[in-house]
């Protein structure tokens, strides 16, 4: 891909990023920060590509660490965000407890 194409994509992605976030409620700042945090775990792909290109044990070592770091970023990031957002679910009203609604025997 040519550099100009890549920079065009970069600029367009920046505008999409700006447009998507421009107005969000205060309460969602933290989960959203955590969610975008998980998305930049995409660096994991860089580790996968790079380790297949390089040679030498030290380069391999560096990149295994990089892949592990990237994986922590992705897996941890999405899980933590999900745990936070779980708290935002609509609570059932006290009368309509969902305890009884859960059929037994279903895992």
């Amino acid at each position: 891909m040519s550099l100009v194409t890549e920079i065009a994509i970069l600029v367009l992605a920046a505008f999409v990023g700006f447009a998507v976030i421009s107005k969000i409620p205060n309460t969602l700042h933290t989960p959203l920060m955590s969610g975008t945090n998980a998305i930049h775990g995409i660096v994991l792909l860089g580790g996968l590509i790079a380790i297949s290109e390089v040679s030498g044990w030290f380069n391999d070592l560096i990149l295994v660490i990089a892949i592990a770091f990237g994986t922590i970023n992705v897996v941890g990031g999405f899980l933590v965000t999900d745990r936070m957002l779980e708290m935002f679910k609509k609570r059932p009203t006290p009368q309509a407890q969902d305890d009884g609604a859960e059929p037994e025997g279903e895992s």
Partner: protein
Amino acid sequence: MTVTGIFLRDNTFLDYVYIVAFSFFIVGLMMMTSPRTARRGNMVAAVGMAIAIADTLLRHGINKWGLIILGLAIGTAVGIPAARNVKMTAMPQMVALFNGVGGGAVALISWAEYRHFGNSLGSKHLIPTLFAAIIGSISFWGSNIAFGKLQELIPGRPIMLPGRLQTVLNASLLTAAVVMAVIIASGTHSGLMFFFILVAAAILGNAIVLPIGGADMPVVISLLNAFTGLSAAAAGIALDNIAMIVAGMLVGASGSILTNLMAEAMNRSIPAIVAGGFGGGGAAIAAAEGAEDRTVRSTTADDVAIQLSYASRVVIVPGYGMAVAQAQHAVRELTKLLEANGVDVAYAIHPVAGRMPGHMNVLLAEADVPYDQLREMDDINPQFPQVDVALVIGANDVTNPAARDVPDSPIYGMPILDVDKAHNVIVLKRSMNTGFAGIDNPLFYKENTSMLFGDAKESIQHVTEEVKAL
């Protein structure tokens, strides 16, 4: 190999699949901006990530499966338990840590690429590699310091060189890193110099975050998050990977907007935060006011119980101190009891109560506090003059009237909850220590304020017993 097999491993085809992957990121992000769809949005983004990873693994030329699986396994083995077990109160530092490893990964990838290819990368790939190395290293070290401060491994107060030395140091480090990068980019191959670039950026990352006070840490984490996004996008250009370019830049752009929104919510400017020193002025102000004529009224649990039971309106102002003491369940029990006695109870939520914007809502939701009792700052502030008792539980800085009244205060201009306008204020606090921002609070010395010292959870439990006994 079957026809489908060849087709699947065709890198041009897989480039199209990347487009599907980053479309998921964009849709996921859009859904995450509304509370109703946020959780599904996060899952959509996660599916996008799974597609991007599978796509990359299918690519022609991917080898060293043993090492790849090792890296993925270590990352999963560390990431899942860390994310599962972290307490809701510790969420901000966890986010900082996850952000840091992302930045670290970028720096390491750039380093390995340069070690292997050297200047044969060509300027189209070399320049973004150098950029990614610098930003990634700053982000890794900066995030670690942010984690250390929030985890209280490092003091939350600003740590900096005197006077303008700090600015000089930061500027020199940045200049050194950039100059070395320019030397490499202009054709000098030096593995050692590349390593020194990483080191200079690492020291810079430490030097930028150490002077920043704990209260500004969420904004800093958000800023570093945007940095990591940018570095990932740069690494994407270096590796000709379209998914990395788009996803990295999405985070870079949305992260900077988010940082700005957060800074606005705290009435702070990003340059002022990065310049540092917030929270350092507390001692000077306390001294200026003259500590000797200020008295603090201490109260007892049975007294508080009487005040609460005979009030018609009570507003609870929860802070991080409550969450740390895991007192939210006890508070919930107390409010139920008061409501049964006909007292009108509401919770006043400051936008940045806790350690991050929206953090307190998460902590209260965890304790099953009903949403309709939560009041946003702008709704509750005009009502404080009609409130009989404001019960402040471990919330220091967000109730500090100095932000409104004392122009010299480091937090001057920050929007606060006007609890001092309530008829009576009861502050639950462990001791007279200053809050997270390290600033003295004039609220504690007001005539209608009384302090109930002790562990928040125990205090609330005592009050609850006394209310029951009445």
